[in-house]
């Protein structure tokens, strides 16, 4: 993200322009007024939408988090920190973060794979564009379609079991029914789905490295691994940092794939699924709001850490 504030520029557009004296003084008040109003005309709709759909919900959410509102009845009472105490003391509400750990592991795997394939495919390789397209395409596929594709893939005695049998690993597994396996299966789907995006971003960054650098390194006798280690990795560091932070906030807000595939039942329930269930199924709007505030605070913390670690100028290339 680019800091808008850091590069605010004084545009000359607002300044007065030389005019001949008489006209100048007569038109001045009106012109001033119009000049002052113009930017607001351009900002009217964007600001109205921003406030209605971002800030009103955020403020309401914080207010509701201190109440026992059920989301339906006209009145509610303020209960202070009760909701927050409940979140941090009821272990079953906290258990959903276990699922996040699996997605975090998946994110690490995803970044490593993306880095490997981006490096391999940025050098001379046959069918480069074909492989690039295949690896990237899953990112574009509709999430519901992906959910169905993998529901079928993971059926007992289905595709995955059949393929494993070809390699001599027998047996039928409840890939989505077994609480010990379900999160591995779902995290695997998320690697399948999102690896391509990271891969394409890394590929773009690698290709913007000046080719002279490799030539110079080759003349100095550096091998492929050394080129990767000392040229590619350092130049990708800001992007890798950004991806890692996005992965953390991403794995906290996983919703779609587990909801579609398992209904978010049992061990596969994530924080967001739980919040949605609390709000819309159990009518605990107050508690759900408090949960959402907790998630928001965690994500803001992560974003703040990112800004500390990765200086902004280096992210935009």
């Amino acid at each position: 993200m680019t800091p808008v504030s850091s590069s605010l520029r004084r545009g000359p557009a607002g300044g007065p322009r030389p005019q001949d004296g008489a006209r100048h003084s007569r038109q001045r008040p009106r012109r001033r007024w119009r000049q002052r109003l113009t930017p607001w005309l351009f900002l009217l709709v964007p600001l109205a939408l921003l406030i209605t759909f971002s800030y009103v919900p955020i403020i309401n959410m914080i207010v509701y988090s201190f109440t026992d509102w059920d989301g339906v009845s006209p009145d509610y009472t303020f209960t202070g920190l009760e909701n927050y105490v409940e979140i941090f003391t009821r272990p079953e509400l906290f258990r959903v973060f276990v699922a996040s750990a699996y997605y975090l592991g998946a994110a690490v795997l995803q970044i490593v794979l993306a880095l490997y394939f981006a490096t391999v495919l940025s050098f001379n390789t046959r069918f480069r564009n074909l492989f690039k397209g295949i690896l990237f395409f899953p990112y574009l596929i509709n999430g519901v379609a992906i959910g169905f594709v993998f529901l079928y893939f993971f059926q007992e005695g289905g595709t995955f079991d059949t393929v494993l049998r070809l390699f001599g690993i027998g047996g039928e597994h409840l890939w989505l029914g077994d609480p010990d396996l379900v999160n591995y299966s779902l995290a695997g789907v998320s690697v399948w789905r999102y690896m391509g995006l990271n891969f394409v971003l890394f590929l773009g960054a690698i290709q913007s490295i000046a080719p002279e650098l490799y030539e110079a390194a080759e003349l100095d006798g550096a091998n492929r691994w050394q080129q990767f280690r000392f040229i590619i990795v350092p130049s990708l560091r800001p992007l890798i940092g950004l991806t890692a932070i996005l992965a953390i906030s991403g794995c906290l807000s996983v919703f779609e794939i587990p909801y579609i595939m398992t209904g978010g039942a049992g061990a596969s329930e994530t924080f967001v699924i739980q919040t949605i269930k609390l709000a819309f199924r159990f009518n605990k709007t107050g508690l759900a709001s408090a949960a959402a505030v907790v998630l928001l605070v965690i994500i803001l913390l992560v974003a703040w850490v990112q800004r500390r670690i990765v200086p902004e100028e280096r992210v935009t290339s």
Partner: protein
Amino acid sequence: MTTAVRARVASTLKYLSLIVAGLVVLLPLGVVLLTSLKTSDELAAGSGPLTPPGDWLNLANYVTAFEKGRMAEAALNTFVILVVSITGTVFIGSAAAYAIDRFDFRLKKLIVALFLFATLVPSITTQVTTFQVIDQLGLFNTRLAPIMLYLGTDIVAIYIFLQFIRSIPISVDEAARLDGASSFTIYRKIILPLLKPAIATVVIVKGIAVYNDFYIPFLYMPDQGLGTISTSLFRFKGPFGAHWENISAGAILVIVPTLAVFLLLQRFIYNGLTRGAAK
């Protein structure tokens, strides 16, 4: 090991890894394609997932999925929402970026900070209260609900436009202003046309997001007649139960347009996403 042998081994391993990765991506999709061409009798008789269908041209499942799944209606709904929200995003985002970059006004820093902070808040966290806002505005169960949300919560577009507007020299504006052009004329006749590459980026990034979004239409338009591609496909879970031949056909129907657009616009999609993400 000599260098030549080592290079040969490395190259073999490289292609092996690429082929394995390709198979991992294509196998789950390929199996669904095979299943979509099988009859329910074939599946009942225990046709394995990797077994080819008896008749490669059996399109009966596609007809069933298309008609019973109300896919025509879903495509139309998605199309309307897509066009309105993308057009709106382009105008709203570019207008906001123009005002922020080209004018000096009071509260500018505050407004920039408001937009900036909003990018940090994942919309999924505020969904519970956003729901109340949509409900109170009377937008629940209308196509306007997703449209307004796509317009109102897309701050990324403003950043993409801001990046590009910065690269347009201010002297261009000044020259036009000396010729008597108003700010609105400058925006419409000079800035917008020069923003074409940014518009392409926003259209692609936004288009992918809206076409594939499940959550917003699912939550805000539960009405049967208001299904989008995503929610209509999700409803296959009910009526088709374990009829995998029909569900597979539905999934393939949804994937094929994406594949067609991808093959046509590959280069632009890669560039658009790289720009959109590195913003």
